[in-house]
């Protein structure tokens, strides 16, 4: 009798555990727009109960806003009764500690330093919400499309690239970041490859004489920057007319889908 009793309980417990592992967490709060985007690309937005004020898709879907970029409303999160909170490295560690004190599981995704890390984090997120296979499928699909593009560029000669992600101050993409992979994929050389800090002077860029300039600042500023660069007629990028503006929404967000979108924009710009 005792043996039957124990084995039934064990059986029920195992079922519960497998259930959670198979279906993943059910009430998720996202504290970063990039993570929200990933959840949407895995078609799991129904599981999202809370988002930040900067998560465009989620706020349109009327999900509850629980945080801005730097401040987090702990009480609101707890009120939503989530079983998982996903955060990025910008979230203050104090908030994470407070949430964990309430027994909520918090998973922090630090800013990925490469496309490979983006993929690994995407799969990890997929596993947490019970969509691991879907995540792996998406990754394979995107990676094969990227490989096709990379092969094409691997044969062209290496060109110097300046990837501008800020104006006032002038900010460049640094090596060992995921955005540097955009440059690597087109077989380019980042003129800032020796730097550890991103604030550079205009003179540095002109001395580096890049063959291609990408600008991802938003609004009118991007156009103003392009005009400023075009006033230096002797720059290689100006002579070949290779200054391109890319939306920072897709270029600066570390998710696999936006990475591919950015590479497609870059590819189309360079092929024309």
């Amino acid at each position, binding site marked *: 009798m005792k043996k039957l009793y124990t084995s039934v309980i064990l059986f029920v417990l195992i079922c519960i555990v497998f259930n959670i592992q198979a279906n993943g967490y059910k009430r998720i709060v996202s504290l970063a727009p990039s993570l929200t985007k990933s959840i949407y690309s895995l078609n799991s937005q129904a599981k999202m109960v809370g988002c930040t004020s900067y998560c465009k898709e989620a706020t349109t879907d009327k999900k509850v806003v629980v945080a*801005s970029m730097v401040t987090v409303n702990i009480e609101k999160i707890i009120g939503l009764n989530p079983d998982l909170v996903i955060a990025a490295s910008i979230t203050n560690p104090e908030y994470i500690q407070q949430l964990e004190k309430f027994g909520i599981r918090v998973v922090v995704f630090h800013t990925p330093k490469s496309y490979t890390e983006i993929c690994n984090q995407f799969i990890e997120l997929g596993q947490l919400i019970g969509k691991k296979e879907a995540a792996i499928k998406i990754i394979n699909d995107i990676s094969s499309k990227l490989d096709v593009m990379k092969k094409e560029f691997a044969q062209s000669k290496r060109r110097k690239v300046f990837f501008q992600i800020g104006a*006032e101050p002038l900010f460049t993409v640094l090596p060992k970041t995921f955005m540097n992979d955009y440059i690597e994929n087109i077989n380019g050389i980042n003129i800032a490859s020796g730097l550890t*800090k991103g604030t550079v002077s205009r*003179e540095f860029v002109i001395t580096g004489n890049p063959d291609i300039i990408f600008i991802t600042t938003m609004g009118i500023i991007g156009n103003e920057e392009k005009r400023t660069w075009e006033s230096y007629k002797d720059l290689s990028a100006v002579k070949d007319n290779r200054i391109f503006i890319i939306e920072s929404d897709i270029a600066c967000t570390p998710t696999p889908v936006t990475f591919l979108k950015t590479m497609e924009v870059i590819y189309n710009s360079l092929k024309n």
Partner: protein
Amino acid sequence: MKNSRYLKWCFFLLVVFILLLGAVVLSLSVGDMKISFSDIIRLLKTKEGIEYAVLVNLRLPRTILAFAVGGALSLSGTLLQGVYRNPLVEPYTMGISGGAAFGVAICIVTGLYLKAGAIALPVVGFAGALLTVFFVYFLSIKRQGGLSIHRMLLTGVMISFIASSAMMFLMSITSAEDVHGIIFWIMGSLSEPNAGLIKIAVVVAFAGLISSYFFVIQLNALRLGETKAQHLGINTSVTIRVIFVIASLITGISVSVAGVIGFVGLVVPHLIRYIVGSDFRISLIGSFLVGSIFLIFCDVLARTLIAPNELPIGVITGIAGGVMFIIALSSNFSNAKSLR
């Protein structure tokens, strides 16, 4: 006796001019791209090539702006220290930098900056500065006419505090990029690409210098105190009002175009007083030129210390100016005495 003083002044001005020339040449030759002094002469003749573009579009505007802003801020400091007769007064004591910075913060946070372009920042900054000046002016009008110096100081300081708290509020509710942009603007930068703004800064700085010379006699009389100056026949209320307006305008324009560059307006007047005394006939032009030299040198440092990265110029002026100030204070040459 009289002649030796004027001789000393002429000698001082000569030395300062030579230093200014040296500073300008240094500023034009320093940077990531190698351009030596002989290169400069050659490029000015041929007017071709990427080096010429760098020289004329990047280094020359920077140097000119440093000249104008350094001169304007130092002149403003000298004028204000003369009017307030207080050695701790500097152009930002009246809250102008707070008002301008708050305006810029609003501009960035509301997204106006992205919609209207880079010109929005100096325009809104100047609007904020003007608003502050209006407040300080109108809150300090005495019943019998004229301005209360005490009240101007206090109102200015209070506005500074309010503005900086309001700015911190804005920064706490906005994105990290916006905060970075606001802080970068506040720390000061001389890399202004709009040639029109630089021209405005230069014209206003010179206009300030020339117009303040119309009041040099009144300023010298004010050194004795408001009452004694009145007994000498000086219309102190008009003088104080005009000097206040001149100092505010040149500070407001400088802050709008270059951000908050501190310490220049505090340290240079003291330096001038120590070198040539408090006579405004020499200290107005003296502080203007020495301020220009100081800021040009600080800008060279800002560009070279962590090259190819650039330090914000407010960092350099703050540290360099602060250290110089402490050294000067702690030595035997107390400047407070020479304020009279």
